[in-house]
């Protein structure tokens, strides 16, 4: 078990080191996300009452699409240099590859969300910072990173990576997407009478189900 954590931390350190060298994934995530936010901000009148109605939609569509583009980048090099294969002939349990990728992407996603939320709360005059949202984001990011890494590895072998990843990822994560949008809506409109607990239960169960399922299936998608 000690060895398990050690290998996991080596894998994570390696990915973060590479990201420090190239800065590709994080920059893609933040810039692309901000670009979508900017396009939306051009089309609104900066009236916070109106923005309250579709703020959640804007925020999350930018995170989702920026996330899936960054995910493609994140796996592109691994496939290009066959480094995933080299881990397969090393004594590394396959689910650790999934976990390390998910954890690293979780970190990137969280950083980019902080930046995107800060900027959009300025652009749209929204007040969105609350403990509820942070908790929701953590649950959402776990699900998104795990399912995204799973499909990221699958689609990295195809020639149309971007469209394939997006098409696979978004329908599957619909439940947690609904959860996070409902939560964000509540926070933006400062509504108290919501069923946040039911949603949180759903989000956590989604994470647990898919974490188990995908760590079990991950070995099967790697072999040729």
């Amino acid at each position, binding site marked *: 078990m000690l060895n398990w954590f050690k290998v996991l931390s*080596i894998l994570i350190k390696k990915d973060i*080191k590479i990201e420090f060298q190239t800065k590709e994934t994080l920059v893609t995530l933040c810039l692309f996300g901000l670009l979508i936010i900017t396009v939306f901000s051009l089309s609104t009148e900066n009236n916070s009452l109106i923005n309250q109605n579709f703020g959640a939609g804007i925020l999350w569509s930018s995170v989702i699409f920026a996330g899936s583009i960054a995910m493609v980048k994140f796996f592109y*090099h691994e496939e290009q*240099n*066959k480094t995933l294969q*080299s881990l397969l*002939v*090393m*004594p590394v349990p396959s689910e650790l590859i999934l976990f390390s990728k998910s954890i690293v992407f979780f970190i990137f996603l969280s950083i980019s969300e902080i930046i995107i939320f800060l900027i959009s709360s300025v652009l749209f005059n929204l007040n969105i910072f609350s403990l509820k949202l942070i908790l929701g984001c953590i649950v959402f990011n776990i699900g998104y990173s795990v399912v995204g890494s799973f499909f990221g590895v699958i689609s990295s072998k195809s020639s149309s990576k971007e469209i394939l990843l997006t098409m696979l990822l978004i329908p599957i994560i619909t439940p947690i997407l609904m959860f996070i949008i409902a939560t964000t809506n509540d926070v933006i409109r400062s509504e108290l009478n919501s069923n946040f607990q039911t949603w949180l239960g759903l989000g956590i169960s989604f994470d647990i189900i898919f974490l188990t399922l995908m760590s079990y299936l991950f070995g099967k998608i790697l*072999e040729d």
Partner: protein
Amino acid sequence: MKVNAKKVLMLTKISKSYQNNLVINNFSLDFNYGDSVGIIGKNGSGKSTILKISCGLLKPDSGNVLLMGKSFDSTEDGLLIKSRMGVVLHEDMLYPQLTVFENLNFYSKILGIKNVNTKIEELSTLLNLSDYLKISVSKLSNGNKKRVSFAKSLLNDPDILFADEPESNLDDNGKEIVSKIFNDRRKRGLTNFFSTHSEIFLEKCSNQLINLKDFENA
């Protein structure tokens, strides 16, 4: 199934097809510890496929693979085998963003090697890589990448070394070094399994030869 303790590798009735194209049909092979086995054949005759199946990268459609008496099907045994083998393929399988040292350091940590620095120093001297340790892999020539790839596969001093065309991309000096490595390993009772096109290399390094032509109609 009877496990023969003397055999390091046993392939039994392996078949593998790509997109309805049967590449390997009912292929069997086994050899002992300490053998140095070279495999030759035309392009597309399935040399790489056999190597990849032997080292667990590809799963055969049917048939059985036993490496050091263990099978890849069991996760625990698979990890045990993998910690005792080394693989060099056509692709370098290195992280181009990292330096040579960082690459080797990463892989040796994964393999759980003690005295990482001494080991890397030893291998880089052996493969004439000492000057390149601080340089990122993306800036290396193909020949040097191949050398790093070799260094990577030798980190754990593997019981069995798989190499797909080990001499390709290398200059004369590199070929010399690689055949020396192979012969040293043989003297120490370690196993090599490689594919090649070069007859000279084959003569130098192998004590057993498999020609895929002989299997075509088998």
